[in-house]
């Protein structure tokens, strides 16, 4: 018995000892020395300031096995990729986890620059020609570079593009393939190997042309044609059926499913990386394409918005006035031999970063504040913050009185103190948003939309809001008043009546539950209070995310809700959301003037003019307030500054979500 007691005691001591050792506050290591063996020569990499004699404790075994700087760029991902098949990847499996791994595998004629989201050529040799009418068609000619090659050495040609477009149009693929929009695009013709001619049967706007077809992926015809041909034949057999019949849909879906299941093994890459291996549930790896045609491409960005691209061979391309201050300058890689994406959960990923197991954490929503806090004291880890490319908003149902009244919406907007909400309540976990285009999308962002009650105190807000309502004819049994006692609070309005004399009905505000998103839940609870202060009876219903979707988009009964959108680079979503009777216009906002502005915007083909129109649209929406934009979240990224450096870290939506870890630009610390 005695011996057993000792045994237990000893066991306890061991446990306590382990805990003690583990919990000791981290000693701040000024210098981190990582010794890596490469070809027999030990290379000592030091971070600031200078190496000390003391060797730091051995990191985990995983770091040792890295071949050396520039060998492997190790990214922690939170979820596995789901498919290797490009057809599926651009439709049902479109996710950051897939794009991060091989998003750069398929070339496009043009694209957005990684850093500033400028419209730049991909495999195109120069700007596309202006759209011209040619017979029944609107045509545009795109010159392609003759030095671009697939990883198997064959050139990337206009044939590839034409074939890709034709296949998508024939099978009427959905998802991101919709960029080859059959409502506009008729076909693409390969005039010669390096000249493509686009034929539209309807005049396309920016969204369909520049931000559509011109940016769509181009697949390798030689590889895919034999595999896809039988499916096209199958489709041809059913093409004559009634396209709205269930039978046709089922058959078409079966064909599409086969397409999505085609084995892509051996598909040549048209980008900087080619697929190397995928260990399901554990990691995936891509390796650098040595012959990548853009390797060494030097990009110079000027403060005035101009841009210059210079290839090692002497080729150059650019726009704007390429003079004055250079705001950024970077050279495209890839600089690593391969990229390994290892799957961790969010917490383990951070531990892995701290332990030197990974160089970067790729998250769709950025790191959380606690995680940033955790690594902030770690000199070996750097962090960067960028606003997310999206916004959280509150929407109104125009079929519910009095929410159809602009005065009510503006009064509510007036009551919502976004600064208080984001800085105090959400304690900096959110950034206020005032217009539908996120600030990070600098080309399209309108910084001067009208604001109500911006910067006012709670008292002034209330008084101004009440004033707005009164002007619109609303009355109360007991008007909401500011009460100086108790440090200043509001005596809620009671018995509010609409201009026609009927009482304001009970409202419900749907918001995601705190478990799903504490930010929106908290915002919901506070907005509920603010609305109630005005005398509009409102109850916040914090509920399951899917229930909100069902109620709102499933044609259910709702008054107001809080959700969020992640948005695309081209701001035509503003019109998609609010065009009369548009599918996403669930609030039934209807404004002929707005529709007209959208019509113009949709049809615009000139970037400059489109920008002016977009600004007007943003102003209208900020005044009419079918949505009240609340806030967006900051995207935090963290990386191991002992192993990797980025040429720039300010990028819309963050390095991870916006730049997929900047695989083409990241460099090893030398």
């Amino acid at each position, binding site marked *: 018995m005695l011996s057993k007691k000792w045994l237990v005691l000893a066991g306890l001591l061991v446990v306590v000892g382990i805990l003690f050792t583990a919990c000791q506050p981290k000693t701040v290591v000024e210098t981190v020395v990582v010794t890596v063996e490469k070809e027999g020569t030990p290379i000592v990499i030091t971070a600031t300031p200078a190496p000390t004699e003391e060797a730091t404790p051995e990191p985990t075994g995983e770091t040792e096995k890295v071949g050396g700087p520039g060998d492997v760029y190790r990214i922690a991902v939170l979820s596995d990729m789901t498919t290797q098949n490009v057809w599926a990847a651009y439709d049902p499996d479109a996710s950051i986890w897939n794009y991060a791994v091989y998003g750069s595998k398929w070339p496009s004629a043009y694209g957005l620059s990684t850093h500033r989201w400028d419209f730049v050529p991909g495999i195109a040799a120069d700007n596309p020609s202006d759209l011209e009418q040619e017979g029944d068609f609107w045509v545009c000619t795109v010159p392609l570079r003759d030095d671009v090659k697939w990883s198997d050495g064959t050139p990337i040609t206009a044939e590839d593009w034409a074939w890709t477009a034709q296949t998508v149009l024939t099978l009427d693929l959905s998802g991101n393939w*919709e960029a080859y929009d059959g409502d506009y695009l008729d076909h693409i013709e390969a005039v010669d190997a390096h000249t493509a001619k686009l034929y539209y049967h309807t005049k396309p706007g920016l969204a369909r042309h520049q931000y559509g077809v011109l940016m769509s992926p181009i697949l390798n015809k030689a590889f895919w044609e034999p595999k896809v041909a039988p499916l096209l034949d199958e489709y041809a057999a059913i093409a004559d059926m009634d396209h709205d019949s269930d039978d046709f849909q089922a058959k078409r879906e079966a064909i599409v499913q086969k397409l999505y299941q085609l084995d892509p093994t051996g598909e040549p890459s048209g980008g900087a990386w080619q697929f190397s291996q995928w*260990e399901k549930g554990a*990691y995936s790896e891509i390796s650098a394409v040595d012959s990548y045609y853009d390797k060494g491409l030097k990009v110079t960005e000027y403060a005035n918005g101009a841009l210059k691209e210079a290839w090692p061979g002497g080729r150059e391309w650019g726009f704007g006035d390429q003079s004055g201050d250079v705001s950024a300058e970077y050279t495209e890689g890839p600089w690593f031999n391969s990229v390994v994406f290892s*799957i961790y959960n969010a917490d383990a990923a951070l*531990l892995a970063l701290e*332990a030197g197991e990974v160089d970067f954490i790729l998250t769709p929503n950025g790191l959380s504040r606690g995680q940033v806090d955790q690594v902030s004291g770690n000199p070996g880890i750097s962090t960067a913050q960028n606003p997310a490319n999206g916004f959280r908003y509150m929407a109104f149902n125009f079929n519910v009185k009095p929410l159809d009244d602009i005065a009510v919406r503006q009064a509510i907007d007036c009551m919502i103190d976004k600064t208080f909400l984001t800085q105090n309540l959400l304690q900096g976990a959110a950034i206020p948003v005032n217009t539908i285009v996120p600030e990070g999308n600098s080309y399209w962002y309108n910084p001067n939309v009208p604001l109500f009650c911006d910067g006012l105190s709670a008292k002034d807000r209330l008084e101004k809001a009440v004033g707005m309502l009164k002007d619109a004819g609303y009355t109360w049994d007991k008007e909401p008043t500011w009460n100086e006692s108790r440090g200043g609070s509001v005596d809620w309005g009671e018995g509010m009546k609409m201009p026609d004399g009927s009482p304001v009905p009970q409202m419900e505000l749907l918001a995601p539950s705190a478990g799903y998103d504490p930010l929106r839940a908290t915002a919901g609870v506070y907005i509920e209070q603010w609305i109630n202060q005005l005398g509009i009876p409102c109850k916040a219903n914090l509920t399951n995310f899917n229930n909100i979707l069902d109620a709102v988009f499933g044609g259910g009964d709702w008054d107001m809700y809080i959700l969020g959108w992640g948005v695309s680079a081209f701001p035509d979503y503003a019109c998609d959301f609010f065009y009369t009777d548009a599918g996403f216009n669930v609030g039934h906002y209807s404004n002929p003037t707005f529709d007209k502005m959208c019509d113009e915007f949709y049809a615009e083909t000139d970037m400059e003019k489109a920008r002016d129109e977009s600004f007007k649209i943003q102003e209208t929406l900020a005044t009419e307030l079918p949505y009240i934009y609340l806030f967006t979240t900051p995207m935090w990224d963290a990386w191991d500054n002992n192993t990797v450096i980025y040429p720039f870290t300010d990028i819309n939506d963050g390095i991870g979500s916006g730049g997929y870890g900047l695989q083409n630009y990241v460099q090893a610390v030398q």
Partner: protein
Amino acid sequence: MGKYILQRLGQILVTLFVFQTLLFVILTAMPGDVTNRMLTNPDIPPEVRERTRQALGLDDPVLVQYGRWFQNFITGNLGVSYSEYPTPVIEILEERIPRTMVLFLAATIVQFVVGFSMGRALAWQRGGFFEYGSTIVGVTLYTVFTPWFALMMIFIFGARLHWLPLGKFLTPILWRKVDIPGMSDSLTKANYVFTRMLWTATAAFVIWLIMAYFTRNLSHTKRNRTRLIATVIILAVSIGGWAMVDIGPLAWDITKHMILPIVTLTLVGFAGTMLMTRQTMLETLREDYIQTARAKGLPEKLVRDKHAARNALLPVFTGLIISLPSVISGGIITETVFSWPGMGLTLLNATTQEDIPLVMGTLSFIGVLSLLAHLVADITYAFLDPRIRYS
């Protein structure tokens, strides 16, 4: 015994039918469907959502869907995952089942051995420091908030002490360089190794059983010695065999990654087995044959291990096997924290993504596994308890 097993088999098939129906009812009654996800993407027009609904047959009458589900279940066609469209569910399950099985079989065995031994000792030490100490520690661990506990285990043993890896089930940096010749393309390397590890374990176990069968008639001390030697030899051969093949280091890598989850699962789970063993032991100790054994002059240790524990083993063992499916579903927590891509994690992800076919497939699998466990429990019980074996 054959009749007994057949009878149980019949009952189990009925239970399976009820279970499947229940699943279908639950999952059909839920609000929303997969196409909800399309709602949040402004790039997808509502017509596309409608088209998808049609194509997936979500607008069909419930009974038609029910019939289809059943037909599919019987033919092993669990449909196509929505979240990994169009990967067949069965393929996803095939990929993840071995990982879950390896981890949880190992964890269950360790947990059982620890819990049973502790419980056995506890029953013998009523009152006093040892009993109250282990009960309190055991129950605390049993009720500790598992996600946090698991994370702290990683934090302490992985991040701070650097003894063990930080989750996952393999080291990418090591695996990426290894090519396994002759491996079929459809398989991942990990599953190739996993399957072989499972087979080795099964083979070793079967050989051990055969050995145990042939040594059953030896006298007690001799039998123990022989079995110990044989066990060591079997272990040595299997480990030695693995050490010699090329994929040995990979298996070792997986094993290293398994230690922490297993320790965690054992710590949070052993108390259940321990307390149950203690209870059944206390009940068994009141049996007359325990007095007989003592009267025969058996030392207490033998009375405990050979007579009391052997009988207490029956309910504890069946309890354990029956709890196996819940261990796997409880593994959702462990798998999530340890980034272990098994069934639990699959279920959680599928659920949050409303990937109904995958949810159904996973639950069906857990159901089938649970029923198999029941069957195994019944058969094992029959083997352990001669009263059933010979009636």
